[in-house]
């Protein structure tokens, strides 16, 4: 027998945990930079508490979308249409006709639009055999066009107080939007890690042929993943509409890039088969915290952008570094001597 004595310890920890630890480290560093640069703000506990809530709240919409995106990517796909779905769902939910049905009607509309667009994506990809990149890019273009058509390129104001109050309501001192994010993340985590749906997602993304030969209906599952992403976008559309008390065809611009970036920074493999919901959440929080840091330091846009790229690179390098060195510590040697 191979020297199995060396085994147990090395196998007890979780790679993903380390990766997430790395992201927590990045967050801590960002906060420290904030404290150092604006000590007067950070000396006020009420401000700090509020700031944390604001960071979370601003992360809530994109966070929900990122959960759906993470599923799609783990399942071996990609969804470039998330921002467009939000716009379409948001605009559709705020037409005068829809608004006449009240808050429930608006929420229902947004969710149905999200699911329906996801379904179209899924059918095109799973059954039409289109490359996900192309199918969802086409959907991006079309859905934004349709949203512009429906809205007459106007910003549609939500006159519904219930919808608008979603963004202002707090529960136990925590904004409702943050609760929604927490709920979606928790549901996403359970779905990925504790259900057969999650297991299929990993299998379908990791090795579709193996999944198929194990009796998994790969096509149907892929389709469901895009529907799930569409559903998350529908939820996100409500959240964003409530925050902006309005919707328009250009809303949620480039959310697709943000969501994909957050998922990948959180440790999801762009080629599929591996990823974590918690990591994706941390990815979103890193971006949200960077934005917050820039705001409290009043950085000019161009400087902000230059720095942001650098921070992303540094964060990933740091995370990799932490990941590697911790791994080494635990394993007492280098994981990978391959290039």
């Amino acid at each position, binding site marked *: 027998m191979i020297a199995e004595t060396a085994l147990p310890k090395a196998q007890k920890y979780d790679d993903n945990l380390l990766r997430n630890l790395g992201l927590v480290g990045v967050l801590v560093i960002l906060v420290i930079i904030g404290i150092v640069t604006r000590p007067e703000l950070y000396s006020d506990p009420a401000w700090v508490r509020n700031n944390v809530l*604001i960071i979370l709240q601003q992360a809530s919409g994109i966070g929900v979308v990122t959960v759906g995106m993470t599923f799609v990517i783990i399942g071996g796909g990609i969804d470039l249409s998330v921002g467009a779905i939000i716009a379409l769902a948001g605009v559709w939910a705020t037409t005068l006709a829809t608004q006449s049905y009240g808050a429930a009607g608006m929420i229902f509309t947004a969710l149905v639009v999200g699911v329906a667009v996801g379904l179209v994506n899924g059918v095109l990809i799973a059954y039409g055999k289109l490359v996900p990149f192309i199918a969802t890019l086409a959907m991006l273009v079309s859905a934004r066009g349709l949203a512009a058509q429906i809205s007459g390129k106007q*910003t549609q104001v939500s006159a519904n107080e219930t919808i608008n109050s979603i963004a202002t309501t707090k529960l136990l001192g925590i904004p409702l939007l943050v609760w929604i994010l927490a709920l979606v993340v928790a549901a996403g985590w359970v779905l990925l890690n504790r259900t057969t749906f999650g297991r299929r997602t990993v299998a379908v993304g990791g090795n579709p042929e193996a999944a198929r030969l194990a009796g998994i209906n790969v096509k149907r599952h892929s389709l469901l993943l895009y529907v799930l992403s569409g559903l998350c976008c529908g939820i996100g559309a409500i959240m964003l509409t409530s925050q902006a008390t*309005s919707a328009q*065809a250009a809303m949620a*611009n480039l959310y697709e890039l943000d969501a994909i970036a957050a998922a990948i920074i959180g440790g999801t493999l762009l080629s599929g088969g591996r990823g974590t919901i918690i990591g994706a959440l941390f990815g979103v929080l890193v971006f949200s915290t960077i*934005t917050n840091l820039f*705001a409290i330091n009043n950085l000019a846009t161009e400087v902000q952008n230059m720095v942001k790229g650098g921070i992303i690179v540094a964060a990933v390098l740091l995370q990799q570094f932490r990941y590697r060195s911790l791994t080494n510590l635990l394993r007492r040697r280098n994981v990978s001597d391959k290039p």
Partner: protein
Amino acid sequence: TSNDTGNDAQVKTGGSGDANAAAGQKVIIGFSAPAADHGWIAAITNNAKAQAAVYSDVELRPVEAGADAAAQRAALSTLIAQKPQVIVMLPHDGKELNATGLEAMKAGIPVVNLDRAFPSAAAYRLQIKGDNYGMGLAAGQYIGEQLKAKGVGSPIIGEIPGIDSLELTQERTKGFNDALAAFGFKVANRRPAEFTADSGQAAATALLQALPKMDALWNHDDDQGIGVLAAIKQANRSEFFMVGGAGSKAAIDAITKDDTVLKATVTYSPSMASSAISLARLIGQGKGMSDLVELQVPKEITLASETITKDNASKYAKLGF
């Protein structure tokens, strides 16, 4: 910026005594404006169409300008090939479409530039533009006066511009800074949005968090202002007053009602598109403006940016878009 679109465009239906109102020689006007999903741009196109419809002797040929300057160049080259009498265009970027302006003028088609100036004077026959610098100046002036009147010593002033890489944004900011400087004030924090309500909400939320106390805020654009106002409400803040930009109907309504922090807005009216069509018609027919002595339409017209407050809001209600 309203859910009811269309029938509320800003048109001039000339009085019976106006000689220029009478139908004349037929004029085909080519028209091109960018397709940004934004209330102001939408109003530009609506106004142009509505104004053209007023004249029985005008045929408007709108061409879509696509997503960027390159697309607009391509669209305009097909338009030039169709030889309209006059071209009215709102370029994505005046500098990037300068060459196209020259090309049209060379082909004998007078060009009316709307809003975004061409660098070379040979590239246009008429230029009508809003005054971006003046807009910032007006906003700064209003804020400065209000704060002075309140006796605030060193006020904390916030600014939420639109897309920051646009030159028009830079001009507005410059005017704003110059006006404030005259009062010895300066901007404490500046968070750009993207002319959309959701980006306005995000920018405003960040700004409010960075400035726990604020005295005044200028938001460049009333469309994104919907989101800015939402963010202010969500943050439960009211210790400051806010000035808007452009002059949307919603903003004018809010100023009239006086139930939000929005106390004024500085205009940048899309009515310039209506004027552009009227003047393009005159250029096409070789007529001048009836109130001017000159026989031809002048080469440059810059609209003044006006400040709408509660006091004069009723006067502007019609011009809101």
